[in-house]
């Protein structure tokens, strides 16, 4: 099925579609179109959310209730959050939205297949370079079956009304009319190892290295900080690995038998073993460079390596911490180039 007002296939969308597919969705589309390997999928666009919300608001207002709150009114925010989330999770979907998502589901998964899927919030305010909004909306991993997928989509929408989300928006004074959410639905990577990587050093802001962190199992253990990942620093240009910190990776996240994720102890013989080979580190570095080059700016990337050894990117977003600092030049050209040597010979200044 082709992309529509409701559904956007990764291959059909890019960052310019962010208002309708959200930051995460736009980024996955962008990566797909740049031939960077991501698990296949589609986005349930913001139009679906709006239709859903409009249907609900016919019964009782939602946005105006949120806007009536002050950011400091925590008790009220808490109460409204509970009320709204319950409404969103219970209410039926508009028919056209429901049928389009199901059709896209069948196209992605095949008729009688129910492969595990990731259902991820993709807010239009999220992942923007100027607002590090990550982690405030929900992600549902290892969702199995069409019904569970639809439930997860609703839960994602509902997470827009979580207490922290509402508080964040109220604090920033964001108008509710500007807030919309798309939902990414994509294949799950059966990761044997996963993690994050940064095309600019989180420690020093150095743009000449890629820092890779990884651990056994699903990436959620690394992202949530439940395991200390192995860490490598690799030079972008020479490929030289200058830091290798192998940690004790005591736990890993694994897919739970009935869907979802469970934590398990890492087998003893793997705990202190590097989770990546040098060849994998080099391959990740190459992909990181391609992604950065594609976007023209430093990126924070989530990656996974599946059971067959294939690398898949789960997400890429612009690095915000160092990029917002704005660096003064290390040195300026001198009228007499020889003056530069006074840095060394001139002593402490």
């Amino acid at each position: 099925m082709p992309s529509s007002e409701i559904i956007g296939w990764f291959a059909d969308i890019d960052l310019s579609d962010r208002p309708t597919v959200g930051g995460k969705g736009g980024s996955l589309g962008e990566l797909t179109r740049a031939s960077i390997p991501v698990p296949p999928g589609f986005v349930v666009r913001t139009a679906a959310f709006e239709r859903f919300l409009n249907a609900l608001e016919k019964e009782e207002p939602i946005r105006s209730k949120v806007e009536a709150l002050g950011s400091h009114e925590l008790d009220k925010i808490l109460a409204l959050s509970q009320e709204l989330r319950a409404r969103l999770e219970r209410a039926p979907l508009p028919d056209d939205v429901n049928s389009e998502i199901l059709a896209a589901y069948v196209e992605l998964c095949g008729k009688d297949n129910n492969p595990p899927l990731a259902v991820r919030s993709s807010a239009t305010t999220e992942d923007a370079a100027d607002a590090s909004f990550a982690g405030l909306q929900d992600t549902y991993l290892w969702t199995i079956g069409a019904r569970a997928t639809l439930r997860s989509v609703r839960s994602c929408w509902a997470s827009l009304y979580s207490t922290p989300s509402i508080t964040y928006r109220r604090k920033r004074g964001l108008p509710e009319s500007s807030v919309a959410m798309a939902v990414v639905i994509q294949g799950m990577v059966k990761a044997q190892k996963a993690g994050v990587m940064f095309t600019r050093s989180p420690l020093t802001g150095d743009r000449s290295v890629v820092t890779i962190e990884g651990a056994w199992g699903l990436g959620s253990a690394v992202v949530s900080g439940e395991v200390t990942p192995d860490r490598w620093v690799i030079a972008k240009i020479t490929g030289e690995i200058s830091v290798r910190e192998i940690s004790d990776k005591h736990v890993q996240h694994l897919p739970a038998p009935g869907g979802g994720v469970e934590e398990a102890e890492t087998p003893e013989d793997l705990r202190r073993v590097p989770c990546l080979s040098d060849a994998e580190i080099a391959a990740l570095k190459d992909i990181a460079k391609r992604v950065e080059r594609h976007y023209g700016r430093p990126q924070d990337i989530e990656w996974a390596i599946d059971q067959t050894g294939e690398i898949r990117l789960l997400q890429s977003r612009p690095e915000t911490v160092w990029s917002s600092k704005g660096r003064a030049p290390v040195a300026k050209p001198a009228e007499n180039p020889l003056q530069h040597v006074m840095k060394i010979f001139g002593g402490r200044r």
Partner: protein
Amino acid sequence: MKTTATAQTKGFPLPSSLKVVVGTEGAQAAYPYYMQFTKEDDGRFWFYNSMHFPEPMSVFDMITAEAAYCALGSANTRVHCLPTTLGIDYRVLNGRVYIGGNAVTDPAEIEKRTQEFQKRAFYYYANWERLFAQWKDKMMGLIRAAEALPKLDLPEFEPIEHVHAGRGIASNHYILETYQKTLEGYFRMWHHHFEFLLLGYGAYLTFFDFCKKAFPEISDQTVARMVAGIEAEIFRPDDELRRLAKCAIDLGVDGQFREGVAPGEIIRSLEQLGEPGLAWLKELAISRDPWFNINSGDGFYHYHRSWNDDLSMPFAALPGYIANAKRGERLERHTERLMAERQQLIADYRELLETDEDRGAYDQMIELAHRVFPYVEGHKFYCEHWYTNLFFNKIREFGALLTKHGFFDDTEDVFQLSHFELETAIIDLMTAWSNGSLPRGPERWPAIVRERKEAIAEWAKHETPPALGPVPDIIDDPAIVMLWGITRDNLDTWLTADEQPDSNEIRGFAASAGVVEGTARVVKTVEEIGRLRHGDILVCHVTNPTWAPIFQKIAAAVSDIGGSMSHAAIVAREYALPAVVGTGTATQKIRDGQRIRVDGGRGVVTLLD
């Protein structure tokens, strides 16, 4: 075994607490008075110059420290007027050379010297090519003068031609004159050595400093690769071996070169082959002059012999080069490829800079570094190798002469006398020759030589503290930082080194990236080069360009001394071999045949069994 020394709170032992090893007091007293520690030295910071003088120095070999520091100090203090530093002071204890910088701290004095520096050093930078060309002429003149020094001869009667020519001066005078000229040439050579060196390193360090600020996690070796020259003379000896390997194949005599066969035996078999063998030997002779005037070490010890004096090293490399050529590998160094890679590296890092201003400054700094760095690399062949060989071999001639007259049991014993003592022995001999009586030296020197040799053997068994005296808050003496890589961070590592004695890790400079596990071959002398087999990890004391030819057959290299800009590090990077240099202790801590892992990107060697 540790030399007894009282620990001082938050610092290194004081010089006065470091004792002469019992029984070696006489040998210690042989070093001139100005090299001995005094009580006043306790107030200053000293460090052991293990980079240049990793083994106890015989009293004659101390001339290298003496001449080098004299020339280095003159260049810094009086010629170029470095603003923040004067020269280097040195002391010797138990044969170990300790050095200390002389910092300038008075702001008015620094300002005054800065004015001078900019008139002098900037002139050198601005006229580098002309001055460097002139330097080469001066250096070649010096080498030719040293080569032209007369052979030593004390005939029974003066040759009749001398008499008829009315020379009027007898042969014994020329012995003294030749000795004095030999010393004079050596002291002069070291002035040439330092004429450009600090300025060259300074330009390199300027670029290095910029890169470290712009790319805080860039490795030292990457910056080094951006600056390193590609056609320096120091690579020539290795190039010559490749040429000779090709000649051997072309002449059909390659079958004569087999691993583990002594050079003399190979040469004899070539001679027996007749025409083609002799043709190859003719090519060998062409390469030897001057390119085999390269030392197996850094040239600071009399026993660092040259390829010309000992063919083991070049002949150990030839079978490998021949095998490579037969496999169809190109033997010539890929100069163009290396140059293109260097340019690409520079361009790639430039692209990562964030502002136009940074790019402008980067361009200026790399341009200067490229202009001046050829000296830093090129001077070594002329100074430390060619000239130093000529010098020590000339001193050997005096050793042979004195041995002939009963002063020594062995020619090499001459290196157990200081250069002052050697002059007295020569005057003793010239006096005896002139008046027909017996020289006094034969009664005096053999016992002293024995005592000093025993002392050196004893000193070598004792570890010596890496530094002495109070730790300075900060080290910003450019000479110390440039030549020895000593920073406050290093000192802190040294101070805590004793706290982790059981570690099976040895740390050094990360010289060339990559990780390799293999069998360690601990090679202490050049004669042992023949023991290296394909795939071994070379563990040696000094890495040196001379050893480059064997890099084709080893899997990795580890050395006790050397920095990330040392030639061995450069060659290792060229061969893409992991290398860790400047470990200080690898040859002591690693057993021959032990399994080790070399991580050249981190500068760590791990003992695996």
